[in-house]
């Protein structure tokens, strides 16, 4: 197993797993707690529009995805606060608009797009040094932000109105975290693709949430759960030639089910032994 480490692509993949488990663990907990998963879906699919345009222009697809993701994130936030459009409708519009733009631009791009599949389904074994640098900066920003402003972030997430009444910088944090969420999604697209990325941001949290109801603990546990899933998925997909993104998601789902079964079994034994409280 260890001999794999002499391959650059494999060490890159390991680093990507580490960095993305940190960023997905942190921002995913924020997303799940605020019930913003659907917004995440909108941003993910909207970013496909950027990928399509970047292909057409011959640019780096990640740059296009990042621009579209951030614009749609801020757009969703802005319209639901200032427009007369309901948030879920606004999300659906960005969602399909992005996909439509992406599909059209890819169709008019001459030639075959070999990497396209890796954006739809992800491929952790092909991350580049540039991807890693991007993920590292993002993870560092998130770790710093959540270390210094943890309480105020949770407070705003829990009760935005109370935070406003106390004159806290609510809009600043809302927009900043929205933008970071978009950037994390784009980074994760490299790993699990547009189609599967939401699970990286929700499955570890759901598993952690089985065992703890505390924001900080969910966040930390999610990082480790995500890391286990990604590392195991990486090895399995390397040796079996299965697609890495899907393998990782299946493993994370399996971890969730194991956790759920464990709790159910524990509860069952507890009742059997006659301990009512």
């Amino acid at each position, binding site marked *: 197993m260890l001999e794999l480490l002499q391959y650059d692509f494999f060490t890159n993949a390991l680093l990507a797993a580490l960095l993305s488990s940190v960023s997905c663990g942190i921002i995913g907990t924020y997303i799940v707690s605020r019930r913003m998963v659907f917004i995440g879906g909108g941003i993910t699919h909207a970013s496909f529009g950027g990928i399509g345009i970047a292909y057409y222009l011959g640019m780096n697809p990640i740059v296009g995805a990042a621009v579209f993701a951030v614009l749609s994130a801020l757009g969703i936030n802005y319209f639901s606060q200032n427009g007369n459009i309901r948030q879920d409708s606004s999300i659906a519009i960005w969602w399909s608009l992005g996909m439509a733009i992406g599909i059209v631009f890819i169709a008019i791009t001459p030639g075959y797009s070999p990497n396209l599949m890796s954006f739809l389904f992800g491929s952790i074994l092909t991350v580049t040094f540039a991807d890693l640098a991007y993920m590292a900066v993002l993870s560092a920003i998130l770790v710093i932000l959540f270390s210094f402003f943890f309480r105020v972030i949770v407070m705003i997430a829990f009760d935005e109105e109370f935070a406003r009444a106390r*004159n806290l910088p609510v809009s600043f944090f809302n927009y900043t975290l929205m933008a970071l969420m978009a950037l994390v999604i784009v980074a994760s697209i490299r790993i699990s693709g547009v189609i599967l990325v939401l699970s990286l941001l929700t499955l570890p949290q759901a598993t952690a949430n089985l065992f703890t109801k505390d924001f900080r603990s969910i966040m930390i546990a999610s990082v480790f759960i995500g890391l286990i899933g990604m590392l195991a998925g990486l090895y399995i997909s390397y040796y079996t030639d299965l697609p890495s993104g899907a393998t990782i998601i299946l493993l994370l789902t399996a971890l969730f089910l194991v956790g759920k079964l464990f709790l159910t079994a524990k509860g069952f034994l507890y009742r059997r032994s006659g301990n009512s409280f």
Partner: protein
Amino acid sequence: MSNLLTIRDLTVSYDTKVVLERANLVVEENDFIGIIGPNGGGKTTLLKAILGLVQPQSGEILFSESMKNKRGDIGYLPQVNKFDSKFPITVFDVIHSGLAMQGKWKMGFFKKDKQRVEAIIDELGIGRFAHRPIGELSGGQMQRTFLGRALISDPRILILDEPDTYVDNQFEGELYRKLRELNQRMAILLVSHDVGTISTYVKCIACVNRELHYHRSNIISPEQLASYNCPIQIITHGSVPHTVLATHNHSH
């Protein structure tokens, strides 16, 4: 007695709908004002304007010198439990969040803070569930928790929006006795539909139905309510001394 807050000619509207019109109110130290009025009369809007949550169309809200932290010196218990009960936060952390205010939000967890949270938990007698996630609380436990959040910053004005919804009679009695005790050290603004019960505890009444009529007494008659353009039913729960309500010819 000194003023804490002066509301002058406050007009608030949503889009084109005027909800409050030229409202005037002065909150003094040790005031205990009961705010009554029909549904949609603008009570919550008045409180939100005081808290800076809605922008008035005209008029002003002035804080006196003694309100050094301005809105940081206001404790707020919002109407009903509009919170996401699945949100991963404990009672302790909800109460602790009440300490955050402008200029004081880059908070680490200082020892002093922790002691203040524990003091409030003791004062409200909620130690038993202090470390539970809020999703596991009953309605009354939830209200106590949010009262704790409102009180921890030692506010000069405490604002409560219908704290008696979803609580049983026993907690309601406890709550009002607690408020009377708190009133020794802070002014209280209380919205309630239960005029009978609040009349027992408040010192003055403000009727809010687009206009605001201030009534310098806790005794109010249906005739006065009518003259204030404040069509509410006087309901009473439990054993309210019948003298608090001057119900002239009020027979069914």
